[in-house]
């Protein structure tokens, strides 16, 4: 039995090339036209991959042509495609599911996409016992890599870093009050990210009240007059500032009397304006945590570096599972097939439950 993976990804091709192969394709074509016994197509914005098994070898060109819709006849351009077989195929899938092969290392969306691809292939009866076992094992490996290493630790985008810091300071964000100063796009994105974490009290202040009202409508907040924003610092928990002011709007002199009126709650200031809206000295005040765009970006970079350092630990976990899977695959391949059955002995799909895998 041949187990293989043929694919194209962000490592080997630009989006212009990848999108040619990302059109919806049914696994059934792979089975009926080129003789795959089992087939599964994983198509995401960063990769298009075919996982399959076959009794006789199938060349990469045939699979590529299937993906482009040229059937099994014409030979397409396969330069950007990679091919993995047997152990390497298993290892590759485990790396993909665990997020080690992703553009943003450790991202977790890919596992959901792999699960979706698996469910879709099962619906079309294209998943047999081997791919079933392989993918179930991949889900387990991904979970282990995530829980045993720090591959998913730390946010890797400015907005996500801001939200993560807010959570580290306040814990639950549900009852927190947020003020957006300046109706910029990044402020809106950050406010939306905070909103997705449960923040409901969002206030927007802008020199143009109309723009403030527009943004308030988008983030389900309320507009505040620009003359009033400093007084809000007495009660808000998070300030997101991105105005186009030439001089700092918030200095220790302005903030000190307001902070004294606060109930000892920390104040988290995210200053994404360039030039900065908040004087750096504000960070020296007790209970005030100031982050500008560079410091947020630097944390995002640190997280990415941290995640990269975790790759070796993740590879170690994967190597154990690849070896385990190889042993199982070897045993099953050596067994003679039962009469009337095309699948390896003992691989009754219905009999395989996640607990057995």
């Amino acid at each position: 039995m041949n187990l293989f993976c043929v694919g194209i990804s962000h490592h080997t091709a630009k989006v212009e090339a990848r999108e040619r192969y990302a059109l919806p394709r049914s696994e059934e074509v792979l089975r009926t036209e080129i003789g795959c016994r089992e087939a599964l197509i994983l198509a995401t914005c960063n990769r298009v991959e075919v996982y399959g098994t076959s009794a006789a070898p199938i060349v990469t060109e045939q699979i590529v042509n299937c993906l482009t819709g040229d059937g099994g006849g014409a030979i397409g351009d396969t330069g950007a495609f990679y091919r993995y077989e047997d152990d390497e195929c298993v290892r590759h899938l485990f790396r993909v599911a665990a997020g080690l092969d992703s553009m943003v290392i450790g991202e977790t969306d890919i596992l959901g996409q792999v699960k979706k691809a698996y469910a879709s292939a099962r619906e079309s009866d294209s998943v047999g016992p081997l791919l079933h076992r392989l993918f179930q094992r991949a889900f387990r490996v991904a979970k282990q890599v995530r829980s045993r290493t720090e591959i998913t630790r730390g946010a890797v985008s400015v907005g996500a870093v801001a939200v993560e810091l807010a959570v580290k300071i306040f814990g639950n964000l549900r009852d927190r009050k947020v003020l957006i100063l300046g109706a910029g796009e990044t402020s809106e994105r950050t406010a939306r990210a905070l909103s997705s974490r449960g923040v409901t009290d969002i206030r927007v202040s802008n020199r143009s009240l109309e723009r403030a009202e527009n943004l308030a409508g988008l983030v389900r907040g309320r507009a505040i007059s620009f003359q009033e924003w400093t007084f809000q610092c007495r009660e808000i928990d998070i300030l997101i500032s991105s105005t186009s002011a030439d001089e700092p709007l918030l200095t220790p002199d302005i903030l000190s009397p307001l902070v004294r009126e606060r109930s000892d709650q920390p104040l988290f200031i995210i200053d994404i304006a360039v030039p900065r809206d908040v004087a750096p000295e504000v960070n020296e005040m007790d209970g005030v945590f100031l982050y500008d765009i560079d410091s947020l970006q630097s944390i995002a970079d640190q997280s990415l570096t941290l995640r990269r350092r975790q790759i070796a630990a993740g590879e170690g976990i994967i190597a154990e599972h690849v070896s385990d899977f190889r042993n199982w695959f070897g045993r099953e391949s050596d067994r003679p097939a039962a009469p009337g059955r095309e699948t390896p002995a003992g691989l009754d799909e219905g009999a395989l439950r996640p607990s057995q895998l």
Partner: protein
Amino acid sequence: MDRALLIASTFCYLTAVARTLVAVRARIALYGRFSFFAIGAGFLFQTAFLSVRGHVLGRCPLTNLFEVFIFLAWSVALIYLVVGPTYRLSLMGAFTAPLVFALQAFALLAPIDVPNQARFPANPWLEFHASISMIAYGAFALACVAGVMYLVQERQLKTHQLHSFFYHLPPLTNLFAALTRLLWLGFALYSAGLISGFFTGGPLPQVKMVCAFGVWLFYGVILQGRHLRWFAPKRVAALCVLAFSAAVSVLWAINFVSPSGPM
């Protein structure tokens, strides 16, 4: 036999410390559960030790500095086991284990397990006074641990240098809430210990009384200062560390100046 139990207990705490160091060094995920169970095992051995020692002495084992340190380590572990999971304070075990290990290792290595020559008749009030005060010290120790965690996290947030274990620390506001509760718990227990001291019947040693009231006053000022918002959270955290260091020093000093030792 009793020392073997103590060595086993110390080994459990050492395991928790080593696990944390390895995890931090290798930048791999820290398991709060591991610390919890290691400290739990250490606590069981400690309890067995104190029980054996108590049977031999025929009273609460707080007759010399060695026993005081073990009882203090036991109280810290007890409060951690109660408080840690309740407040879901991840990584608290990683900070608690070194403290308990240090207290216990010091007690084992230093030549302080000297039998107390002073003989007093069994006195339930005296034993209650000593033991409840020690448990209060446990709460103060945990407040100190929470204070250190707060200061570490606050520093990282201020300097924007986030170490990998930053992600395991509990949120700053939750940590401060737990610290305040631990201070109140310790203060209430310590007050009960002080009051019960008046019922022991014997003459009250002046040095002990002054020291005990000094510690009580220190924590009282911290709590009052917090209540009236004289002190910012960061200052409260720093004062918790300072107060506990002072309290342990006082405990040590009492042993030398008081003829009856720690009790």
